[in-house]
Structure formats: C-alpha cells, structure tokens
C-alpha cells in the first residue's frame, strides 16, 4: 500500500463526506422550515390550540432532525473512526 493509494483514499473519503453532508442536510432544512412556517401560521390563526401545536412542534422537529443526524453520524464515522483506515495503516 503506497502513499499514493493513501492519498487517493483520503481525498475520495473527504469529497464523499463533504457531498454527503450537503445533500443530507439540504432537504431536511427546507422541510423543517416549511413545518415551522405552517405551525406558526396556524398558531396565529387559532391561539387556543397554540399550546398543543407548540408541544407537538418540538417533537416533530426532533424527528425530522434525526434524519440529518443519521447523515452526520456516517460522516463523523468516516472521518474519525474509519473502519477501512487500518488497511492502509492509518
């Protein structure tokens, strides 16, 4: 395993991690924004159910966020605890 292959492994790994984070968090951010927008609109329309909406809003946001967290988890594992690193002696 030469240093050329180590370099290629590092470069490809970094590029993949960068692309994964971008695509993984893009849709999540857009959809969370839409959920929050609708929630605020309806809380202003009907103040009597505003407390119930607020209670569910946090839970739904955490559920949506968990998808982005899955992507972040894979990226962190690839960067810091890469299972293929010991093939190259890294």
């Amino acid at each position, binding site marked *: 395993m030469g240093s050329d292959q180590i370099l290629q492994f590092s470069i490809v790994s970094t590029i993949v991690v960068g692309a994964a984070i971008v695509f993984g968090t893009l849709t999540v951010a857009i959809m969370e924004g839409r959920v929050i927008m609708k929630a605020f609109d309806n809380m202003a329309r009907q103040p009597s159910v505003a407390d*119930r909406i607020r*209670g569910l809003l*946090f*839970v739904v946001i*955490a*559920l949506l*966020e*968990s998808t982005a*967290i*899955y992507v*972040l*988890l894979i990226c*962190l594992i690839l960067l*810091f*605890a890469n299972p293929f690193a010991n093939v190259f002696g890294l």
Partner: protein
Amino acid sequence: MGISGVFPQSVFTILGFTITNTVVHTWVIVAVLVGLGIWANKRFKVWEPESWQLLIEYLIEYVDNLVKDQCGRSVPEIVPYLTVMITFIAISNLAGLFPLMQAPTRDINTTVALSLVSLLSTQYFGIRRRGVGGWLHSYIEPNPVMLPMNLLGMFSRVLSMALRLFGNVISGEVISAVFFMLVPLLSPIPMNLLGMLTSVLQALVFTVLTLVFILDAMGPEPADDQPVAAT
C-alpha cells in the same frame, strides 16, 4: 488521546467482559438516581410538601399529560415506567456537564439497550392488556399479509430510536471536541448550552415515541369507539 477520547474507552475486564468507562458512568448515574429515590421516598409528605416534592410531582404530571394528549384518557400503569425512562435519559445526556463524567448515551451499546428495553416494554404492556392471544393476534391485525411488515416495523423502530439518541449525543460531543481543539478558550460554553437543549429534547422524543408504541401495542379501548365529547 485527541478526539477519539469521546468514544468509549475500556477500563478493566472481568471474566472476559470488557468494562468500558460507559458502564462505570452508568453505574454512577444509577447509584445517584436510586439513592435520591430512596432518600425522597422516606420524606414524602401529603400536607405542606417541600419544593423538591413538587418538582417530582410536576414531572409525573407532565408525563401523565403526555399520555393524555395521545389517547384522551389517563393510563396509570405506564406512567412510572415512562417517568423513569425520561429521567434516566435526560440525566444521562446531561452527565457530561459534571466533572469526571461523560454521557453514557454516547455509546451505541447504551442506546441500543434502551431501545430494546422499550421494545420489550411494549410487548409486556401489550400482553398485560390483551392477553397472549390478543397480542399474537395484533401481528396479523389488519391482514395476515402485514405480518412481515409488522415484524420489520418493530426492528426499524428499535434501530431508529437507538440511532437518533446516539447520533445526537455523539455528534454533540465530537463537535465540542473539534471546537475545543480549534478554540480552547470559552468554546465549551455555547456547545454545552446547545447540548443541554438537545439532551432534554431527545429524552422527551424517546419517551413520546415509546409511549406511542406502548399505546399502539395495548390496542384500542372499547370506549374509544364512542365519539369523544368536545372539551
């Protein structure tokens, strides 16, 4: 040790089992919670309660309101279990704020264990409410064709709850470690503030999901077929 210090390290081995520092931290948290519980149990008062008793009662009432929001009525048999779950997960996630302690939920083993306990609890409450026959019947509930989907659903719930909790905690720790490496002065303050928010929120989400699955396994009450009166 660098950034890999946030991942669990082995402390010692007993009989071939590796004891990581996650297990030691969990023992400390369990000892503290059980000790507080025993201490508080002797000092409960019906009249003129002290402020910490009101805090505990507020927590139990909060969990009871969570149950009522989901199914319209109070289910007292699951409230103690859910209260312990939310307290343990919240304290575990916040344990990183105390000196010499780290969050045991930053280990995938802890979160998978919690999710498996959740899964077993849904089966337990389902059997307790509906009997073994009713519980087995619930797997072919809409249609016998749904049997593999129901089994796969159970497996995917465990996986998603474990990964959600683990991912939130470990990503907070790794990002804190990276920030600390870059900016050692005062950088733990905003990271810990964000960590406190996500800790309690993830405990709440875990508990709400467990609650929904338990209520789903317990099945509909006969009174649920009646229309609910407007509140």
